[in-house]
């Protein structure tokens, strides 16, 4: 009885507030927009038969026919992929240096990487608005040094979105790579160097392959949330920045087209399933290797 209650309470909670809402999203994605409250049709009040008869894939056909959505998905994928790669370039040297730092420093360095996590995401993104704007800190600095003579337009461009994603997600990249490098046996690199590798070759042939699992895990941890990102493109991006999270938000709040917003969500979910499964596999393989 006790065991039953223990299982049932969290189970029912998640069913009611996680699974059922998804079924509703899926159902509404098959509905039509209507001028009523709630703004879609059919509802179950119409009776079961007409309810199912009225569901169709019209919204998906609409998404497929409208160029905007294609471009939004493609551009989300591109922005997420490019920023994941850039985050790797920024994060790897930091993780590498952390793993090489004296043992007694490492807990402090770890804490310094984790600390920003606890600070509001919104504030961390907002901090860049003041830095990247036309009269912002970065432009003032560059003008002062004489590197540029006219302020650069960075805020409200895709560049600002890349910077925002790298900044907020780089800890997700650093931590798994650090934990892979931390476990790496230093004598392997010495062996490679003794056998005639240059330092760079040893890095390329030994260190990188042995930190592969960390690189893969970190990349997924950046890519997956970046794909559906809303705050960064809407604060740092410009009108030309197309990302699907923003499109969904606008479809829902500005256009009040719930069925289309739901269809956008369903497709985003389908796109995300692939990287999520790959990530799970990588984690499982890693766990098996360790066991």
């Amino acid at each position: 009885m006790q065991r039953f209650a223990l299982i049932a309470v969290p189970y029912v909670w998640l069913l009611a507030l996680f699974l059922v809402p998804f079924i509703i999203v899926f159902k509404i994605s098959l509905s039509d927009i209507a001028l009523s409250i709630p703004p879609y049709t059919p509802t179950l009040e119409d009776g079961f038969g007409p309810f199912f008869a009225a569901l169709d894939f019209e919204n998906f056909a609409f998404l497929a026919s409208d160029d905007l959505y294609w471009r939004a998905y493609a551009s989300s994928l591109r922005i997420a992929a490019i920023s994941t790669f850039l985050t790797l370039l920024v994060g790897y040297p930091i993780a590498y240096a952390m793993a090489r730092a004296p043992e007694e420093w490492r807990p402090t360095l770890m804490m310094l990487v984790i600390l920003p996590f606890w600070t509001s995401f919104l504030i961390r993104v907002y901090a860049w608005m003041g830095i990247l704007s036309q009269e912002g800190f970065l432009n003032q600095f560059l003008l002062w040094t004489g590197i540029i003579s006219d302020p650069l337009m960075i805020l409200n461009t895709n560049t600002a979105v890349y910077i925002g994603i790298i900044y907020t997600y780089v800890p997700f990249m650093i931590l798994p790579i650090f934990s892979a490098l931390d476990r790496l046996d230093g004598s392997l690199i010495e062996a490679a160097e003794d056998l005639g590798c240059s330092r760079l070759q040893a890095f390329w042939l030994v260190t990188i392959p042995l930190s592969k699992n960390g690189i893969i895990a970190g990349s997924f941890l950046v890519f997956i949330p970046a794909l559906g990102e809303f705050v960064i493109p809407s604060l740092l991006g410009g009108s030309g920045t197309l990302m699907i999270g923003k499109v969904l938000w606008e479809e829902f709040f500005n256009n009040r087209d719930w069925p289309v917003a739901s269809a956008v969500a369903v497709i985003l979910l389908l796109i995300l399933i692939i990287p999520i499964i790959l990530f799970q596999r990588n984690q499982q393989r890693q766990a098996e290797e360790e066991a």
Partner: protein
Amino acid sequence: MNRLSWFNVTSLTLGFAFLYLPMVILVIYSFNESKLVTVWAGFSTKWYGELLQNEAFLDAAWVTIKVAVLSSTFATVLGTMAAYVLVRGGRFLGRTVFSGMIYAPLVMPEVITGLSLLLLFIGIGLDRDVLTIVLAHTTFSMCYVSVVVSSRLMTFDRSLEEAALDLGCSSFDAFRLVTLPIIAPAVISGWLLAFTLSLDDLVIASFTAGPSATTLPIKIFSAVRLGVSPEINALSTIMIGIVTVGVISASLVSKRNSLRQQREEQAAARAA
């Protein structure tokens, strides 16, 4: 291998400068006299004063704290139960679905979670208010809590529980007297994580909050959409300050506890 090359020193310096400079700049400019946030016009704390007189922000802060305390507490209870079920529950019907529902919210885009919950609340005719935000936050943070707690449950010695059961504890007493004290640090960090996730959340709260209940992130977001403002800088500084003090003191406490535990273990070893 403990000598840092110049390359590593440079990466660490640049890396941490990149992580911390934006926030340092934000904090400095919150003390700027000028309304023009990019021109330095002397030290002033006037934006903090204005912030304290801004009723809308204070109301929103109060709602945010209420939501965070309630949702993180519910999430800790539910998440710990879920972790216990996952690690110790054995086999039961629908276990795969259950573990799927625990892990899926961790990777779900917030816009989808928010949208789906809003559609549910409207579908069942629940008015959007503090309650709906609490329900939404509890749901996604309980999954984070359960991941944190289950990783602790997996590593601890199960024979301690079995000993308690053999010695006549009921399974609930065994949990209360043996398991819970051992996993307490994980439960506490789970609560803290849930609390910060709730404080932080903009997207899910925007979908599930009604006009009568606005949280601080929603207020901040609608203010900064129009551009940088010194009041928001002041507010951000306060929030950064609270988090920094909180995290540093939490890590000091846990360090002291682990030192004490070490000493006790050494003393026990000597006594034996």
